[in-house]
């Protein structure tokens, strides 16, 4: 396969691979690093590629190895079991679900929906996702119970999901 085509193929799988990496490590930056490393390895091993193979699972295997190596070096256990993720990986991380164009549309809609959230809720997800506050730290910071944070997080995500759906339905095309 031509180097350019191979690069394109890697690019097609990049985001679904990021989803897979994120599911394994639950940290966006670590996931990005893992995917970057996996793609570099895959690029270096492009001579091993043959079209009959399941490219997605091969890439996931590389990410998994990168992750396991990292986990081992830090002497800790992975959160979600690799078996579970691997068993349902084709279903959950199909590249079709992560295609560039629908992804960008959905992301734009999500950005709009975030702006529609109440200021308190916006602050809450910003503190959790952007600033990395755990639920327990959030609960201490806000003077609420961890359970309250859990429920609030769920409601925010549910509201965002509904809003995105509506936005995409009414937007032309």
């Amino acid at each position, binding site marked *: 396969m031509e180097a350019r085509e191979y*690069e394109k193929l890697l*690019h097609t799988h990049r985001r679904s691979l*990021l*989803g897979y990496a*994120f*599911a394994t490590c*639950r*940290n*966006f*930056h670590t996931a990005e*690093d893992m995917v*970057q*490393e996996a793609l*570099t390895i895959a690029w*270096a091993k492009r001579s091993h590629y043959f079209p009959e193979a399941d490219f997605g699972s091969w890439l996931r295997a590389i990410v998994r190895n990168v992750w396991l190596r990292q986990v081992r070096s830090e002497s800790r*256990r992975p*959160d*979600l*079991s690799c078996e*579970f993720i691997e*068993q*349902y990986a084709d*279903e*959950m*991380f199909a590249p079709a*679900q*992560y295609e560039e164009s629908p*992804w960008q549309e*959905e*992301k734009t809609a*999500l*950005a709009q929906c*975030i702006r529609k959230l109440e200021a308190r809720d916006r602050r809450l*997800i*910003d503190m*959790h*996702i*952007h*600033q*990395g506050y*755990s*639920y327990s730290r959030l609960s201490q910071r806000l003077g609420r119970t961890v359970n309250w944070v*859990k*429920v609030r*997080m*769920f409601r925010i*995500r*549910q509201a*965002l*999901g509904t809003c*995105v759906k509506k936005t995409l339905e009414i937007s032309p095309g």
Partner: protein
Amino acid sequence: MIDPSTLIRIVAGVDGELSPEELRRLEQEMADDPELRRVFSDMLRQRLMLSELMAAPAPAAADGARRRRLMVLLAAAAALLLVLGVSIFLAGRGPGRAQVVRKPPVELPAARLTRIRGEVRYARGETQTWTEATEGARLRAGDRFETRLGAAVLEMGGARIFVNRSTRLRLLAAAGSSGDVPLLNLAVGEVYIRDAGARVHVETADGLFSPVGTRFDVKRSQGATLVAVEEGSVYARAKTGKAARASPPRRPSRVNLERIELMEKAVRIAAGQLSRVARGAAPGAPAPGHVPLAWVRRLEPAPARPITGETLLADFGAGDRSLRGSRVKASWTNLRFTKTGAAPGKKFAARANQYLGQHAQVMVAHEDSILHIASRGMTLRVRCRVDRKAQLGLYLVPQGISELEMIFPRAQSAVGQWQNVLFDVPDDLVGRDIVDITVRAVAAPPPVFLVDEIAIQNHAVSAGTGAAGRKGAEYE
């Protein structure tokens, strides 16, 4: 219909907020129920999207048409602002004009010059006023920094940045996903970074280099950037051919990493590898290799090692002029600093066994010999620590030197035929680890300084003894 408590657990699971047991239980439930898996997968997608959005607050840079439209709008707005600005400025030139409110400079995490060798200077923001840098000077985002023949170490948020000679760089804050991160905009020269969690990014005209807990060297010269990694790894991405400038200058102190036009392909350079990156081309495949880092070692404090006749001879060679007259013998051991005055018995005082680029200096004292300070080059440096408010005295016997320049940090700088020199140590230097005095021979022939005495008043450490038959001078 899925039970709300299960949905709450799914969201918490995606956020990594479930205990291992709770997670196993959820996995079990999801394994049995495809609907739960679908919800989990949707939530995971949404979470990833949120992370992407929050990691990149600014719109993506390479967004062709939209970007061009935006640029036209911005140019028009800038022109309008310029016209408005000039009119306001002209209108307000009389008494009672409105005060200009300046934004405070962006603060980098404690950017401080901790070590300086030779001439190093910096300029604040866009000003053209260059200030000679001194150890302890604080730099801010937007400041430019230049080493000519000198070199320096800069500490920033736990990272140590070694700056080689002939380097020009600018310190910037880069808007990253989790707040500002330090960004070095390297115009030319070389930096070596020991990154202790601060993740100092480096930008050159060729690309962007992002470390992952690492030690690495970036050298920009001859239209390309060479990156060598000693520990950890570095992601290198080349700039697109279009990106003509080293950094987007909209706000000179802060850069949005997302706005730097980079090529899609990134290369991970692992420990023991190096890669050459040039603008407009994919980074070269990392190859095993190192770059010489002797200059970094020279900037580090010399490790304590015993001073013996042997080490002196090894450092300078038996026939070296530096040791002439001091009759150093390899068998001498336990050489140490002595208090002011003649060293008793065979005590031998040595001090300032340092290397400064090509210049090696040594000061050797022995009760029967003249204390020598000799330099193969032209610059002598006296280093000491001053614990209390003190005066620092030097007695030099310059031989064959027509002129000497003494530079004491922020106190005096003078040119003359110096013999007795007594400095007041400025208050702010008292208690500092090292005070440097540079003695520069302005004119040749070969500089050999015979030093009778180095005395730090009110301070225990001093090296020196008189020449044979001559008592070393002391300064009251």
